[in-house]
């Protein structure tokens, strides 16, 4: 059989192939749909978590918005710098990178420190408690309820409930998508730059006097942290100290100074930084003393 057989087979299938290809060719003409191919590319560049943190419905929605120029290319927190770079490459634009943020728990009032006002019988959900009674179940109206709405909300499994009923953020996993911030009815979760290793674990609106009544870990406005900071990274705003993150070097001296333990280390401070800070503190003390000493005669101050 042979050549003829081969030709018949080849010819037959070739003909069918030709017909199929022609139909497809015609169809691709007739049914042309124009879509910016970059939308697909951008979608691929995104992590595909569909977390909605960007404010668009799903990653592809965001991709369409970015390509259309309706959204900034750096809104995807989970994608991080990598995604921004890739999107920039696809769209041919240069984008500067942002400081990575991370979620932080601004409350130290766990079950022990800040007991509840009543026994709660209901859905184990923070939002539920705050709807039931304004201020929630804790003594402090701003305390963490500890029922884990933030844990539920995190799509990246970055939050776990600690033993004392306070959430603990896994800083490696957190993508700063902000879902926990949205979910927390008590405003406990906030995003801070990941360089900030020390935070104020309290955000109460109560006055110091009332704080003492309801919570042993809350800020009592004693100002010790502000005083001890050698870099002037802390200042009181209302009842609470506030960080200037650009100044804080995370030496942790304020942690030692804080009696209730409101100042909390999210990452253990580096001992070297601490040494430096202590030195700086000593220096400043000396300066202070010197200034005081020099105050009365007032000679030309040696600037340093």
């Amino acid at each position: 059989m042979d050549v003829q057989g081969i030709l018949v087979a080849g010819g037959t299938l070739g003909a069918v192939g030709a017909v199929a290809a022609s139909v497809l060719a015609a169809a691709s003409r007739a049914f042309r749909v124009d879509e910016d191919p970059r939308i697909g590319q951008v979608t691929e560049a995104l992590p595909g978590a569909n977390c909605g943190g960007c404010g668009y419905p799903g990653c592809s929605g965001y991709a369409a918005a970015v390509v259309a120029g309706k959204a900034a290319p750096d809104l995807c927190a989970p994608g991080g710098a990598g995604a921004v770079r890739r999107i920039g490459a696809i769209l041919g634009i240069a984008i500067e990178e942002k400081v990575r943020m991370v979620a932080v728990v601004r409350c130290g009032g766990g079950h022990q420190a800040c007991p509840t006002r009543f026994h709660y019988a209901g859905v184990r959900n923070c939002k539920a408690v705050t709807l039931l009674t304004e201020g929630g179940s804790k003594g402090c109206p701003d305390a963490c309820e500890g029922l884990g709405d933030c844990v539920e909300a995190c799509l990246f499994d970055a939050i776990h409930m600690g033993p004392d009923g306070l959430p603990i953020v896994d800083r490696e996993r957190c993508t700063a998508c902000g879902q926990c911030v949205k979910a927390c009815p008590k405003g406990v979760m906030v995003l801070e730059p990941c360089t900030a290793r020390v935070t104020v674990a309290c955000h109460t609106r109560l006055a110091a006097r009332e704080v003492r009544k309801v919570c042993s870990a809350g800020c009592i406005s004693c100002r010790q942290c502000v005083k001890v900071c050698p870099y002037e990274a802390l200042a009181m705003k209302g009842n609470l100290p506030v960080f200037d993150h650009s100044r804080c070097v995370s030496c942790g001296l304020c942690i030692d100074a804080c009696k209730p333990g409101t100042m909390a280390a999210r990452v253990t401070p580096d001992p070297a930084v601490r040494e430096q800070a202590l030195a700086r503190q000593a220096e400043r003390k000396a300066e202070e003393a010197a200034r005081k000493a020099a105050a009365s005669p007032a000679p030309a101050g040696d600037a340093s």
Partner: protein
Amino acid sequence: MDAVAYLQLVFWAMFVNNFVLAQFLGICPFLGVSRKVDSALGMAAAVIFVMVLASVITFLLYGAVLVPLSLQYLQTILFILVIAALVQFVEMAIRKFSPSLFQALGIYLPLITTNCAVLGASLLAIKKEFDFMEALVFSLGSALGFGMVLVLFAAIRERLALLRDTPRAFRGMPIALLTAGILSLAFLGFSGIVKV
């Protein structure tokens, strides 16, 4: 064959010898496009359309081209070529005329090409030596059966998705497969009702 026989053939193809649960054809789209009832309905419609059309075309090509030329050994390659082209054609058409359906079916339309059910229906119709009407009815029944379990399964999976207590190890594909297993166990109840 009379009308009753055709009905029996449809029943057989849908229930007794269901493509997915008894014949293991088209499992990938069955697992892939069954997360939402709406997309399952779309997929079911697409498969029914493609499957019947493909069976008819391949049946005719087989009888009119391959048999006279003694090229039966080309049936696989010819059938799949026709199916692939057909699917792509349908895909382009849907994309043009119903972008919403296209969105919903998304990446699954091309999956029909690699849906063994479509090729399977074409091949089985030849293997079982059906005549034209039988082949048509058989492919329709098979496609309906596929669509039916797809939709059933999609409703089941929508419910599975609402379950919060499924142990971690079983979430997703394992539970879907185990459900399909129990479903196919239940479908064994149809065995013996009609023999074809």
